[in-house]
């Protein structure tokens, strides 16, 4: 592509800045109603409605955690059964080798261990983390996204992107910035 004339740098999208969670939610509702599809919002605190407004889908995490927990329970039980019955049988006070009641506690603990690790690692991986670079960090004002400012981004992949900057200025934004790729 070296022979093509240099144009403006590639854009990830345009970003609008707001002062409150309410302003961001109002703007997100307007943006979605206007037919934009490639939208993301950034806030310093969790805002419950925001994901429903923009993405309309819930995470698969609870299902993964359930699977992780059942795996943990099965692992714990199988480990103890195998060690106490097959590999290293020990007669303890004449009790049956497979005395499952005594296997409850380690199985229970491994259920919780596997579920918790699935929840934490699942959240991190589904969120695409760790991700040291992301275009939104190119906007200087974005460092306030972890303090007290709220941001809405319409990405350049959006079919209606050409109208995005003008549209965002009318949503009550305190500022609208280009986000370099």
């Amino acid at each position, binding site marked *: 592509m070296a022979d093509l004339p240099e144009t403006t740098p590639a854009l990830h999208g345009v970003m609008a800045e707001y002062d409150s969670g309410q302003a961001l939610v109002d703007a997100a509702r307007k943006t979605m109603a206007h037919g934009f599809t490639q939208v993301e919002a950034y806030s310093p605190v969790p805002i419950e409605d925001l994901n429903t407004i923009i993405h309309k889908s819930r995470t698969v995490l609870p299902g993964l955690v359930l699977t992780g927990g059942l795996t943990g329970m099965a692992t714990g039980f199988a480990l103890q059964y195998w060690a106490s019955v097959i590999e290293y049988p020990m007669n303890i006070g004449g009790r049956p080798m497979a005395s499952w009641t005594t296997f409850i506690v380690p199985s229970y603990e491994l259920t919780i261990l596997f579920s*918790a690790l699935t929840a934490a690692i699942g959240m991190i991986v589904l969120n695409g983390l760790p991700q040291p670079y992301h275009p939104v960090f190119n906007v200087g004002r974005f460092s306030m996204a972890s303090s007290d400012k709220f941001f809405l981004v319409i990405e350049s992949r959006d079919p209606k992107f050409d109208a995005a900057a003008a549209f965002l200025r009318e949503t009550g934004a305190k500022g609208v910035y280009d986000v370099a790729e």
Partner: protein
Amino acid sequence: MADLNIHRPMALQETPVILPGHDFETVTETIAEIPLSKRFPLGWIGIFAIALAGAGMLHMALGYLVLKGIGIWGNQIPVGWAFDIINFVWWIGIGHAGTLISAILLLFKQQWRMSISRFAEAMTIFAVACAAIFPVFHTGRPWLAAYWLFPYPNAMGLWPQFKSPLIWDVFAVSTYATVSVVFWYVGLIPDLASMRDRATSKLKAVLYGMASLGWRGSARHWHRYEVASLILAGLSTPLVLSVHTVVSFDFAVSLIPGWHATIFPPYFVAGAIYSGFAMVLTLAIPVRRFYGMESLITMRHIDNMAKVMLATGLIVGYGYSMEAFFAWYSANPHEQFMMYNRMFGPYGWSYWTLISINVVMIQLLWFKSIRTNTLGLFIMSIFVNIGMWLERFVIIVTSLANDFVPSSWGMYYPTRWDFMTFFGTIGLFLTLFLLFLRFVPMISIFEVKTLLPQAKVKAES
């Protein structure tokens, strides 16, 4: 909160969980400036030096133990479990308050938990780390402890005995330690991003940035984050209740008089939360004073923690009375002797000291004037820590020293190495806690912000 107070008479109005005058920016500033500042306050350095000396003493005591063997401790037959298990149970119990605050109070939507959850959880992790030292070194040869404790295919072809509560305890405590660290770190991620964005030097920005994993706070991020936090809280709740239950099984499943009691699991869990809240108060009262956090850790928090301490302390007192009742009602001479020996035997002083702290002294907490007197509460919280240590001493040592057959009785006397190891773990705990205060935001920035009006969003009409 404030609107609820309007219709109440002045005397009944509660202090809010955040004092007026805070917004998003001031909250971030107040909390984040401590880890980001270049200065190490003189008081911090002084206490850190003392704590580090304590940790050094621990290192020496454990080093000598490894050289000489556990004969340097006072443990003898018949008292084969002594300081090591007392301190293990004491530290694990202290940890329980952190999980209660961060998990159980989250499920109950208690907003006052947000200002104290971060450092209470840090306290949990450091307390569990100190606890783990004792059983591992009690094995005498900790480098061999792996195959005694963990099931893995080893060269001897040996496997742990899964019908023993001791191996259940290994699973419970190691799961508890892991889940506590994971829960704490997940809670830290958004705050580490705040630290990255405010960092004053390139190095800090890079380090906090790597630790925050590149958190951006997008709507999708937060949605998955909130789901994960709720699940982790839901998992930690039964976990924390199971941990001290399993610790109590170490005793209750045996046949020793004074240990073989069905009341042990709930009584141990209540005692754990009681001592844990005492430790949170011991740490929170000086921290809020010296770091000027009175507007975020208000008198409301102090008062609520004192109330939890009173409630759980009363359950513990009920446990003591039931132990005495069971001993009498069992009509079993060994049980009856055990109780008589606890009260009037050679260790009677420890029983009456613990009763005067855990049953008599805590009645002072019925008075609001005591619950809101930080100095008085600080002193009481230290006494509660001592009382709960003595409770474990009474349970473990008196039961073992005088069991069924008088010919096998014997007294237990701790050695200087026992004391050095115990006070050494306090030094290690304080060292870790001071490093935490210095380098990590001690209060959850984003959670406190959710309490402010700026975060409130109206539902769509």
